[in-house]
């Protein structure tokens, strides 16, 4: 893919982003909020301090991964609306292994990551299996599985051997099972001395950084490699373009479909693992509803045009505006819901943008016909 093609794909998305903020600004003005000061406060909330930038990066991890999960599924011709449930399974299993087992450091984290990711993958594979065996649309099964995962989470959360009454949370994942960076170090005397000297470093350490972002990047690279450089990836993409042809050519579409849903589920589950092992309080919370990362993954994937590397930037972008919106709300008073509206507008403009060329071509054609008639 040469530079020209890359620009071609970039421009509609860039225009959609600008358009979304522009129309959102008009909407804000109509409702009586000042768009300029709101956006300025948002940008302030993203870049003003190293702590904010660190927060954006840390909070982008689950978004990048759920986006990747949905994008991957789309590339395989499937709609993974079940990312929400797969995320929860990831959180649940990671907490169980992280809190209940005792293993040496690093090994503990790796084991809980692997077990949770496989469990979430299996959860996704159920939807794939049902589609393959019974022909049931994966959207319905995934929606049902989301809710089943949700209530399973609540059921195990309430178990006396996991629940901590005073905090209304689960047992905490032990230190050996977490993915934090230098957490123990920063509380020692030596650590505190270094932190006192260096404000950037202290800012970053105080926002509880974790390895999640780097693991997410690795996952992005892995999926990119899988899809574009391996035979299996080729088969999966072929299945996404035309299922019947793939079957005709001899590819095992049944197995590939289940595999695709397994991988998509695993990625969404990874998002959950990294969240619960990397973000304090390292416990399962009492959830009244879905956390939302799974649904957000849908638009992150769409804005990224379903490209794995695009998901990285898309996740960072949406994490940035999310973080910025809380600052905007506290500084200027603009409700953070405007972000939902701007996101909706961006997605809407993206939906139109790819078809914009068609409309422009049609108008050009009409113009030509009219000119021809005039010449007669």
């Amino acid at each position: 893919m040469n530079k020209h093609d890359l620009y071609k794909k970039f421009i509609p998305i860039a225009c959609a982003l600008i358009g979304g903020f522009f129309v959102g600004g008009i909407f804000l003005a109509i409702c009586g909020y000042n768009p300029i000061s709101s956006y300025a406060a948002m940008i302030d909330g993203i870049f003003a301090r190293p702590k904010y930038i660190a927060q954006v990066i840390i909070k982008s991890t689950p978004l990048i991964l759920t986006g990747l999960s949905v994008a991957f599924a789309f590339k395989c011709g499937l709609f993974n609306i079940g990312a929400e449930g797969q995320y929860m399974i990831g959180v649940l299993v990671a907490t169980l292994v992280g809190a209940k087992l005792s293993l040496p450091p690093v090994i503990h984290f790796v084991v809980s990551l692997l077990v949770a990711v496989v469990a979430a993958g299996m959860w996704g594979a159920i939807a794939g299996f049902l589609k393959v065996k019974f022909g049931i649309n994966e959207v319905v099964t995934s929606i049902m599985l989301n809710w089943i995962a949700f209530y399973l989470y609540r059921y195990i959360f309430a178990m006396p051997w996991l629940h901590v009454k005073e905090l209304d949370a689960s047992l905490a994942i032990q230190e050996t099972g977490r993915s934090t960076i230098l957490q123990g170090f920063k509380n020692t005397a030596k650590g505190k001395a270094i932190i006192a000297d260096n404000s950037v470093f202290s800012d970053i350490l105080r926002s509880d950084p974790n390895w999640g972002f780097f693991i997410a990047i690795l996952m992005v690279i892995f999926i990119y490699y899988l899809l574009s450089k391996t035979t299996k990836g080729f088969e999966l993409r072929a299945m996404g373009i035309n299922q019947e042809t793939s079957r005709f050519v001899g590819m095992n579409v049944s197995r590939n479909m289940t595999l695709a849903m397994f991988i998509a589920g695993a990625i969404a589950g990874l998002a959950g693992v990294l969240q619960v092992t990397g973000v304090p309080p390292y416990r399962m919370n009492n959830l009244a509803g879905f956390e939302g990362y799974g649904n957000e993954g849908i638009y992150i994937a769409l804005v990224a045009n379903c490209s794995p590397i695009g998901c990285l930037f898309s996740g960072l972008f949406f994490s940035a505006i999310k973080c910025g919106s809380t600052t905007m709300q506290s500084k200027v008073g603009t409700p953070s819901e405007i972000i939902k509206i701007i996101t909706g507008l961006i997605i809407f403009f993206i939906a139109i943008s790819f078809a914009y060329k068609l409309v422009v071509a049609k108008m050009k054609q009409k113009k030509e016909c009219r000119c021809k008639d005039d010449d007669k």
Partner: protein
Amino acid sequence: MTISNLILLLVGTLTYTTPLLFAALGGVMSELSGVMNIGLEGVMTFGAFTAAAFSYSCGNPFLGFLAAGLAGALLVSLHAVASITFRADQTISGTAINFLGAGVSILLTKKIFNTSTSPTAPKLPSIFPVWIAHYFEGTTFQTLKGISIATLLVFMLVCLLYFVLYKTSWGLRILATGEHPAAVDTLGVSVPKVRYLCVLASGVLAGFGGAFMSISVTSSFSNVTICGQGFIALAAMIFGKWTPQGAMLSCLLFGFAKECTTLFEKEGGLISSSLLEMLPYILTLVALILFVGKSSMPKADGIPYVKGSR
């Protein structure tokens, strides 16, 4: 099973079913004409907000209900323009509607009412006029007054849609537009026009569904009023094989399972409530496996129609 429990079960089932069914019928209308509409959740939210706002401001729940239908049509018109005229990817524009609907509703609630929950609004009246309900006061049948008049409307709509779709020529055109739009085009029927009408109808219906949640089940709107019902309605539509009667049966099944769960939770604490709550969803999965099988989606669903193509 006492009579009063059975009546509670009936009323509860109908209460759960009604909003789902409104939205599911909307989904059916849209998809039968060939336009995928996964934005039902956002339309329901916007409808719920509009109904609560109008009902509160005017004191009249019927106005709120109608306004919700119009609001739904307004929001969904964006999706219609994007999908039909601009031939955009219908999944994407549907997702956009979800976000726009939710965002605008909550923002306007905060702006107009200065709180994140709208003030208490007058509810839709029950199916039984006050003098009949009064007659039953104190008897075991008194809970029947909990059935809203909108429930009657939605079941009438099922019959109406069934009749229109399968017994009139309009309905045939709608079905054909979703299966083979090129054929319909050769007959001189405008495919975009049919699709626009159906998508707008789906917006009105989903708006009604949302309205039911905010001025019948509860009496206000907040960001948790609509919580997944739009997606359950989608599932019900697929489960019902894209027919109004199928949607009705699947919504009833779901509402029944949900209500059974609620009743069991009240009665005894033997089975954990979380496990019970899973039941409607597991039941739907099992029913899907046993009874439905291969989905029979309209053939041209989700594919933008380009005049002149095969």
